[in-house]
């Protein structure tokens, strides 16, 4: 019997191996397919499209985000009874990690939220799995809805190599800004310059308060903290060039070194929550909302929760520029863009759906449900802090001051920069090593120096 066992095992292995081929999709020409797709793109009357089921994967699962998407989906299906929307809702992280498998499978969804940047959207574009939307953008006039940088963030060349230029692969509903929330009870007059801001940090420290509530255990908040300081030194164009990996871009610049030195100095001076690397994001903003100190550097996604907790005491401002009257800039961008998959059988209906999610009516729904629409709107939000957020969004749009997230830059830059900021702020790595190390990580991807 023993003699029989070995061939049996080998046979089993062979059977298993036979199921393996070269992994991955087909290698047909992306540019050609893109051109074909665009030629067949039409703005259609959805009511005459027959019975259509659109499968949509989104991550609009929290509070106001959920309310707006449910309301808009319902409205779309009421207007077009021939269309059924099959919604698959996932958390942000789950969506990012499962999307590639879903979109490359045989039963790909029609519409997906594909996160900006190389890790998700870039990979999908490279695989030829998303449909270019420029023809639809022209037909529906999407270019008028967004400042240019917001469209650029959703652009890739069809081979996925160039980010920030090329074809449009998605559009977003909401804007977001990482700015400075402040407690009006402690900050009667918001500082007008970066130096004023530093002075109020020192004053708060002197009063025994936590100048900036900050929890970095989750690693990603460090990106927001660093970039908020970086904005006081580096012009938006410099950061954009870096993120889009344009010719000659580098992380190891005098501006970045200065910014890194400054934020490390703040950490050393005790301007952040004690043990910030061991404090979670949620406990940190909750402490701020309970009056721990004057400032919190965070994204507008916290507006609703903070308003609920603090009411009229909550204020929002952009990080003040070096000199009063200088153009303001801020880290920010837009929510995950809605994209159409290459395999969708009904791209024209999908485009109409995306248009419906981002038109002027949708903007009004977004405001009513407590969100910040990326599109211009005349609808008024409720509460002073919300008004300040809307005003900041308009200012940034008009002054072209939005700066994209650094972690879009390379597939691994999220891990690279979050770990590096933790080291920098713990005093484990001087500013020079910080910028040089990250430049080294960046070059692994861009291959140039």
């Amino acid at each position: 019997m023993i003699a029989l066992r070995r061939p049996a095992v080998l046979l089993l292995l062979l059977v298993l191996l036979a199921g393996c081929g070269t992994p991955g999709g087909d290698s047909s020409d992306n540019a050609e397919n893109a051109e074909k797709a665009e030629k067949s793109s039409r703005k259609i009357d959805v009511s005459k499209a027959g019975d259509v089921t659109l499968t949509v994967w989104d991550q609009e699962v929290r509070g106001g985000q959920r309310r707006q998407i449910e309301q808009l989906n319902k409205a779309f299906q009421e207007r077009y009874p021939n269309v059924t929307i099959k919604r698959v809702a996932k958390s942000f992280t789950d969506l990012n990690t499962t999307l590639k498998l879903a979109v490359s499978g045989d039963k790909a969804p029609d519409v997906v939220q594909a996160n900006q940047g190389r890790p998700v959207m870039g990979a999908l574009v490279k695989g030829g799995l998303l449909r270019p939307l420029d023809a639809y953008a022209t037909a529906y006039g999407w270019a008028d809805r967004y400042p240019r940088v917001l469209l650029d963030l959703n652009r890739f060349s069809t081979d996925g190599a160039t980010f920030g230029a090329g074809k449009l692969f998605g559009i977003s509903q909401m804007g977001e800004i990482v700015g400075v929330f402040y407690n009006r009870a402690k900050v009667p007059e918001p500082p007008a310059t970066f130096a004023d801001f530093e002075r109020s940090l020192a004053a708060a420290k002197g009063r025994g308060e936590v100048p900036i509530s900050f929890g970095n255990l989750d690693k990603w908040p460090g990106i927001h903290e660093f970039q908020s300081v970086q904005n006081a030194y580096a012009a938006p164009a410099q950061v954009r060039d870096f993120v889009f990996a344009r010719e000659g871009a580098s992380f190891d610049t005098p501006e970045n070194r200065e910014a890194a030195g400054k934020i490390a100095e703040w950490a050393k001076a005790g301007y952040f929550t004690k043990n910030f690397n061991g404090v979670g994001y949620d406990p940190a903003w909750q402490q701020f909302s309970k009056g721990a100190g004057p400032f919190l550097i965070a994204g507008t996604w916290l507006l609703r929760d903070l308003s609920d907790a603090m009411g009229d005491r909550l204020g929002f401002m952009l990080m003040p520029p070096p000199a009063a009257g200088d153009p303001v800039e801020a880290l920010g961008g837009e929510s995950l863009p809605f994209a159409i998959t290459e395999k969708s059988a009904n791209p024209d209906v999908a485009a109409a759906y995306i248009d419906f999610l981002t038109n002027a009516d949708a903007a009004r729904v977004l405001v009513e449900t407590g969100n910040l629409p990326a599109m211009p709107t005349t609808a008024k939000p409720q509460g002073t802090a919300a008004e300040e957020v809307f005003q900041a969004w308009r200012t940034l749009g008009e002054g072209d001051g939005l700066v994209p997230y650094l972690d879009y830059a390379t597939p691994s830059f999220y891990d690279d920069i979050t770990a590096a900021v933790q080291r920098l702020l713990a005093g484990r790595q001087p500013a020079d090593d910080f910028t040089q190390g990250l430049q080294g990580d960046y070059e692994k991807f861009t291959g140039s120096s």
Partner: protein
Amino acid sequence: MRRPPGEPRRVAYLYLLPGLALFAAFVLAPLVHAAWLSLFEWDGVTPGRWAGLDNYEALAQEPALRRAFGHSAVLLIFYAGLPVAIGLLLAAAASRARVRGLAAWRTILFLPQVIALAVVAVTWRIVYQPTGWLGDFDLALPAVGLVGTWVVYGLCFVLFMAGVQKIPQSLYDSARVDGAGPLREFFAVTLPALRGEIAVALTLTTIAALRNFDLVYLTTAGGPGDATTVPALEVFQRAFRTGDVGGAAAIGMCLAAVIFALSLGINRVADRAART
């Protein structure tokens, strides 16, 4: 023709088939597939490129990965060493004294095993919050390790208690007649009798230590810096975030090989000790 009873018959393979089919479909096939993928440079979307052993070669040269495996070695102390030691201590103490409500104690000590790891991780994040240990470059790894100790020592204790209860009382009696103190009794009677249980406990805890992902991911996500990265976390990051499926599969294969070698080693040692 009559067979003598007990003679192996081919029909036995038929009985094995259902189990084997399940094992092949859900363990062997993915394993072989992962091994196959580890030979490609593949981003998970576009067609892969044959890379041979390049992925493995690249791994060997990566200091970050060596650190991750080093962290796993430290975690072994907290996941396997400490829990087995604590379990032995508790079992030895319980074997000497008549403990009132032993069943209740056993349940309480076993409780951490029953709680979902995600809940454990979130709870310990809150517990550690005031100390700041999870954000400290030197203390984060031991802090995560201690959570592991807390989770698995109950399992060791329960295993050892079951073992202690099957040791004949006469052995203890004769040891005592021979004048053995508590320490002597432990090393001469309890410890040798528990060899099998110790091997099982070490195997289980070693596997838990090396494939540790959830606890690290949910408490520190590998931070601060890369002070708590572990190989399984690297697998996840490469496969799902940075689009290096081949590299991820290669790390996974290395990890599987290490786990396999260690558990084989543990059981070899235990077997040999049992024979002498």
